[in-house]
């Protein structure tokens, strides 16, 4: 694998500077949380993303985007993770944007993503654990269109979205990959109820209920019954992106913890002098480096359309979630009592990790994928 190109390094530097300044915990996460914002993120910052062209990283140049790949998205997401910046970028700009690529929906939504006006959401999960193959929400043909019945949960920013990409079953039964169709559901569709739910990290996800929601045939994204491949491509990018965000989160938590080890004194010594803590910190460092390599490799393979991409996406999501989890557990423990207070930021990393670790499949889901893809 080659190293970052000069352009990629420049993007990384821009993103790092911009997010450390504008996307900081004090200016974004704590601010929106403390005023009880219904979106859980700031539209102003999303507009700033747009002005810098960042909302269009994964949107093709023919549509006015930057036409870059998952690698560039991953570089931005690492900085988002480091600053715990609440942002629609992963769901709207990476995953949902991919689901509508090459369809008429792209003509409609890409301009609004590029301008920072719109947020999209992705409705996949129907139970508390990620299982996209088991999609059951039914879409039956009726007249010129379809009627949808069922429910969805953990729809990130679902109550803030103008359109929700919804994975439904038009044929077959749960467990089968054939028979899944993607629909573009407008927020104001009739029979469609959205419950805005605050999660542990102060981000918002929605529970959706579809009670006879009628849509025209042109709400279909791609081909009827053949949505699995399109959904998978979007999920792979989303997982690789979440992995990169987790790497940033782990690095941020670890940097904060190392700072603490260098200044907190007990027994008349800096606690960072204790070998028991040094070795744990060094182990964590090594794990974060490995997680970063896995995330970058998954992104690079996706961009190259390599046949090992799906395997490495699962490796990356599993590894990065594991490592970020270790980083926040060590972070809170090594901070001692202060780490348990709401005033200190380290706990915010722990809360965010719980959500990102679950998103698009947790470690166990992806270990299973790795086993299956490896033939055992």
């Amino acid at each position, binding site marked *: 694998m080659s*190293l970052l190109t000069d352009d990629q390094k420049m993007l990384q530097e821009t993103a790092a500077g911009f997010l450390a300044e504008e996307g900081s915990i004090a200016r974004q996460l704590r601010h929106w949380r403390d005023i009880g914002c219904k979106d859980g993120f700031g539209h102003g910052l999303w507009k700033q993303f747009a002005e810098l062209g960042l909302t269009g990283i994964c949107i093709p140049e023919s549509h006015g985007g930057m036409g870059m790949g998952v690698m560039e998205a991953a570089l931005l997401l690492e900085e988002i993770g480091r600053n715990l910046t609440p942002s629609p970028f992963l769901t709207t700009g990476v995953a949902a944007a991919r689901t509508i690529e090459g369809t008429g929906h792209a003509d409609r939504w890409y301009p609004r993503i590029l301008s920072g006006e719109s947020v999209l959401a992705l409705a996949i999960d129907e139970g508390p654990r990620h299982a996209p193959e088991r999609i059951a929400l039914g879409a039956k043909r009726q007249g010129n269109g379809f009627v949808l019945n069922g429910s969805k949960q953990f729809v990130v920013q679902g109550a803030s979205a103008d359109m929700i990409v919804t994975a439904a079953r038009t044929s077959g039964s749960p467990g089968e990959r054939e028979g899944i169709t993607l629909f573009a559901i407008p927020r104001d569709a009739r029979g469609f109820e959205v419950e805005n739910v605050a999660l542990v990290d102060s981000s918002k996800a929605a529970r959706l209920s579809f009670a006879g929601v009628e849509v025209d045939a042109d709400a279909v994204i791609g081909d009827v019954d053949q949505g699995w491949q399109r959904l998978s491509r979007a999920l792979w990018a989303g997982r690789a992106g979440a992995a990169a965000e987790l790497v940033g989160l782990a690095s941020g938590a670890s940097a904060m913890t190392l700072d603490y080890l260098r200044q907190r004194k007990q027994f008349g010594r800096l606690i960072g002098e204790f070998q028991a803590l040094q070795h744990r910190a060094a182990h964590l460092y090594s794990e974060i480096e490995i997680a970063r390599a896995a995330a970058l490799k998954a992104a690079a393979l996706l961009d190259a359309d390599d046949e090992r991409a799906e395997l490495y996406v699962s490796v990356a999501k599993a590894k990065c979630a594991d490592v970020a989890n270790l980083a926040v557990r060590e972070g809170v423990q090594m901070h001692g009592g202060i780490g348990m207070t709401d005033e200190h930021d380290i706990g915010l990393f722990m809360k965010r990790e719980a959500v990102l670790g679950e998103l698009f499949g947790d470690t166990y889901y992806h270990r299973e994928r790795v086993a299956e893809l490896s033939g055992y």
Partner: protein
Amino acid sequence: MTDLDAFRHEVRTWLEANCPAEMRRPIRSEADLCWGGRNWKFQSDAQQRWLEVMAARGWTVPDWPKDYGGGGLSADEGRILKEELQRIGARPPLTSFGISMLGPALLHFGTEEQKKHYLPQIARGEIRWCQGYSEPGAGSDLAGLQTKAEDKGDHWLINGQKVWTSYADKADWIFCLVRTSTEAKQGGISFLLFDMETPGVSTRPILLISGSSPFCETFFDDVKVPKVQIVGEVNKGWDVAKYLLGHEREMISGMGLGGGGSLGAAMKPADPFLRAEIAAFDVDALAFAAMSERFAAMWKAGEAHPASPSMMKYAGTELNKRRNELGMTAGGSDALEWDSERSKSGKPSRDWLRSKGNSIEGGTSEIQLGIVAKHILRLPGA
């Protein structure tokens, strides 16, 4: 066709014509490796021919300068050669501590005469080297070594003892750390090269728990070493030693890759709990493989932290120990057999036991974590 495409084509054609079929079969055990040296008995004509043709092109050390017996290849050309060798499953023509450890240190610290003299011999596999570092009283605290070298005008007089000297009983020459001053700990160490046939040198193999004896105790009793056989300056040998250790650790970390395949795919575990644990291992192993690739690229580009081989060595060896633990468990009672033909003379259990040394040799895991804490994380008092 780009220059690199043309190079790949040339390499492929040349390998097709020159790599003997026998040298494309998987390595079954350490006994299949070619170590070279004055007393080396080639296992077959094919093994000898493979070494000779590769050495003639400088491809036993592709990235060394041509003047010193190397191939003078660029990083991209080196990668292509490696890929083409892997493509046909070619065995390494030569396995040698001269290539993986001493060579890089000589390239960095050696005089022009030393490079011209020693490096081509290493490249051709004519001299087999061993490493004289650890002593009975200097393991993790390596700089505490006591083997004494006295200045006798035209030569050094060496007295003392080394331990864990890999293959000292089979080696032709040794690169050896000696104490030339007691004024300073690290600043009193020098780096010498000498012939293992010099009078006063003797070795005794150490039998390991794995049943093999890859290491020796090595004794020096009034051994005379010519003054010119010092690498770097007197009392500055610790710099050479550390530089060489970086390369040794990088090499050892490679065992984290195992054979490159998925453990789960090899073992097909039926037990669901074991399968789950092996899947967790495979995730870590694949992630480590990505790190290994990234590290190699960063190291070549000069973007890696100088202490990062410690991180790689730690991660790679701990991973290899886990691989062997899981391999033993998945193998069940088959894996317990010690000398049956079925078990290839107890390969699973011997490999498992041998792997326990991985996180000890070349600096223990605890030493590596300490280096990372001090030099990379800059923690206080480390």
